């Protein structure tokens, strides 16, 4: 997030898109509703009528995968009306002319046709957002899990810069991270091309710094992303995989393929607290511990580094994940993995990571600090890009609209989108064994529009087949006007009726994020067998 969660409360216009905020990020939704109560205009753009959409001043459904088109459409209107922030554009950005040229291709009539959002609504949204003093954009996986995910994100940044809605309190572009420490995992260099703090592995000076500190020769070649890893296993180039606390067997697209691939490995080691679907395929499984059994830090979606504290001793012989890795590293012949405490690890990391440099356990003893925090006097950074962008001027990138990788046709006439529900979490490793959560949402379902159900002769609660080019699942229906016509929604949490058997593996060329949010399916009744 460019801003802090509490700051949202002071925004006077909030645009929520691709985020089912009340269910997936309730404590962010809480601030959005407070802002609304204080008079902010709330705009929700989502294919589903989510809970937060009920409170929107303007709610519109876009057709799946048409985000670049409506964002360009908004900017087109803003420029036509002269609502852009000319001062911000001239002082802090570059590339406006190229953007303007591209935007000419997005007159409201055309955008209405592509996105299904009416001209009048587009105009209302453009006006509310552009004329607000402090407008915020909030998005989640509904924006990123597309083959145009990166395009979508850049387009939102274009929109924010065009109106000067970035680089100040309560105004910015705010992606909501799905898992508790996704932010931290990225910050810590859990990515193939960067060391901790987003320092490039290809930069010679940086690589040398790490070589010196870690006393090792380091590769300058960026590694494989998760989707590329699976591909390389398939091609026989990758022989061993070590998975710490992840369950790609539920969370990856096209599950049948993932299983097939993992089985090809010579060595699969999984470290987890439960015997997950992924762990079951492993050759060796090592027991880690839960968050309650270890010390450390998590970094939340608003870049806030906060303490995790040990409440109980590890169960059985389980060990904290870092202890296990240190043991293996030592056994593999490296002696730089000796730490007395988690704090020592943290200190080594902050020494090497400029954006965390000023953070210590002592300073976050009471409350968290938001990075960047570069020295011991630095109070941290509630919002980013205050006086300049990290690269100096912000660049507008003209983004042309591209269709999703798979579109509906006669054979597969329904759009499928996937997402979360508030009572379950990710692959359900934890929430599925929590009685209070499981009780609320025992099994998966496909949400469909009642009119479509009538046409297909399907009733509420009936088990149906959902079929895509990649697989078939059987799943109960739930009828709801929350989804539009010719569209269905399936929560991705359930292994037994896994949405990701159906989803498309097509990825965004830059972020490599798969297109979970759009694919084409058909629904079939299950013929009852004669008794």
């Amino acid at each position: 997030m460019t801003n802090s969660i509490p700051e949202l409360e002071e925004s006077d216009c909030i645009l929520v898109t691709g985020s089912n905020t009340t269910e997936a990020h309730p404590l962010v939704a809480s601030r959005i509703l407070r802002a609304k109560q204080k008079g902010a205009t709330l705009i929700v753009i989502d294919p589903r009528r989510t809970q937060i959409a009920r409170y929107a001043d303007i709610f519109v459904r876009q057709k799946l995968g048409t985000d670049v088109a409506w964002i360009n459409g908004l900017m087109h209107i803003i420029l036509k009306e002269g609502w852009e922030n000319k001062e911000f554009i001239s002082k802090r950005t570059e590339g406006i002319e190229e953007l303007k040229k591209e935007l000419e291709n997005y007159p409201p009539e055309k955008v209405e046709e592509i996105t299904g959002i009416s001209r009048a609504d587009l105009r209302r949204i453009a006006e509310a957002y552009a004329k607000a003093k402090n407008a915020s954009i909030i998005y989640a996986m509904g924006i990123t899990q597309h083959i145009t995910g990166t395009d979508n994100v850049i387009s939102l940044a274009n929109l924010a810069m065009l109106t000067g809605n970035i680089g100040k309190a309560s105004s910015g572009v705010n992606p909501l991270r799905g898992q508790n420490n996704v932010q931290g995992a990225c910050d810590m260099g859990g990515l193939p091309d960067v060391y901790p703090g987003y320092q490039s592995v290809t930069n010679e000076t940086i690589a040398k710094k790490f070589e010196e500190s870690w006393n090792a020769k380091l590769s300058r070649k960026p590694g494989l992303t998760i989707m590329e890893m699976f591909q390389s296993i398939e091609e026989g180039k990758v022989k061993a995989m070590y998975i710490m606390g992840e369950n790609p067997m539920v969370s990856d697209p096209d599950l049948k393929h993932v299983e097939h691939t993992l089985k090809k490995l010579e060595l699969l080691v999984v470290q987890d607290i439960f015997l997950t679907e992924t762990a079951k395929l492993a050759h060796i499984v090592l027991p880690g511990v839960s968050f309650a059994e270890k010390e450390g830090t998590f970094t939340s979606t608003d870049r806030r580094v906060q303490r995790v504290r040990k409440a109980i001793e590890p169960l059985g012989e389980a060990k904290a994940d870092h202890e296990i890795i240190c043991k293996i590293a030592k056994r593999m012949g490296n002696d730089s993995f000796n730490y007395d405490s988690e704090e020592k690890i943290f200190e080594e990391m902050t020494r090497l990571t400029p954006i965390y440099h000023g953070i210590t356990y002592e300073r976050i003893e009471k409350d968290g600090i938001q990075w960047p925090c570069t020295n011991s006097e630095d109070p941290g950074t509630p919002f980013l890009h205050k006086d300049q962008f990290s690269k100096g001027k912000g660049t507008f990138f003209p983004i042309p609209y591209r269709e999703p990788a798979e579109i509906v046709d006669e054979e597969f006439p329904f759009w499928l989108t996937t997402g979360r529900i508030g009572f379950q979490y990710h692959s359900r490793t934890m929430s599925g064994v929590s009685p209070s959560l499981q009780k609320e949402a025992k099994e998966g379902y496909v949400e469909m529009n009642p009119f479509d159900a009538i046409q297909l002769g399907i009733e509420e609660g009936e088990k149906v087949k959902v079929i895509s080019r990649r697989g078939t699942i059987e799943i109960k229906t739930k009828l709801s006007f929350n989804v539009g016509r010719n569209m269905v929604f399936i929560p991705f949490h359930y292994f037994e009726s896994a949405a990701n058997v159906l989803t498309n593996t097509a990825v965004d060329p830059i972020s490599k994020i798969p297109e979970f949010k759009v694919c084409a399916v058909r629904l079939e009744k299950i013929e009852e067998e004669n008794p």
Partner: protein
Amino acid sequence: MLDENIVSAILGLKLSHGHPIPFLFTKSSELGKWVFDESVRYPLTKILIKIAQKYPDQKIGVVVRGCDERSLIELFKNYQLQKDKVIAIGIPCSQDLANRCRCERPFPSEIEDGEFAKPVEDYSDIEEVEKLPEQERFLYWMSQFGKCIKCYGCRNICPACFCPSCTLEDENLIKPGGMPPEIPIFHLHKAYHMADRCIDCGLCEEACPMGIPVRRLYRKVKKAVKDLFGYIPGENEDEKGPLEFLGDGSYELPGTGK
């Protein structure tokens, strides 16, 4: 009291990592970290039930404000705690807090130290909603309930909610799942059950992440019970609630009292 073995432990707040958090003091040497903070309230009497269930024979002290004391009375009455095993250590609230809470009794019957704040009788929060025409009033509440994310926080934190099985989770009454949960049934069930139990501490509303004015609702039903039956929860230990929603005798629950 700890040294003299009057109680084996005292439940209060301790300053830990810069924050006042619930802690059971068992040694007088630990009392250095004892803290009293007006702005931070936890349901100590409710926590005490969990401890007393495991240690029914221990006498335990608990720090109480006016509202906590009212909850103690309800918990004694409903056999969740044994009166002779609990020593209440009374503290008064400041006038400022009493005003903010619109508290009609911002002090327990006995206080260790400090001054009694003046009772506040202020139903302007309820009147504000009652002024609305019926249709608008209905929409007001429906819109408030529609924000609910079914966290059960209002129930979980309530020092007067203690049933081992809760009607809010009864599949026959309320459909599982749903954000928001079935409205208005979910909230009306809760409100009905609060009518002769609510001790008006306001912890429910503080715990609501979505800012639903649940306390306002409970105050309203509580006032209705007061006007109809002259009954006020948390006042008199010998007087049972008029609604007896738990059925005859069924509230002799697996607490510690009976």
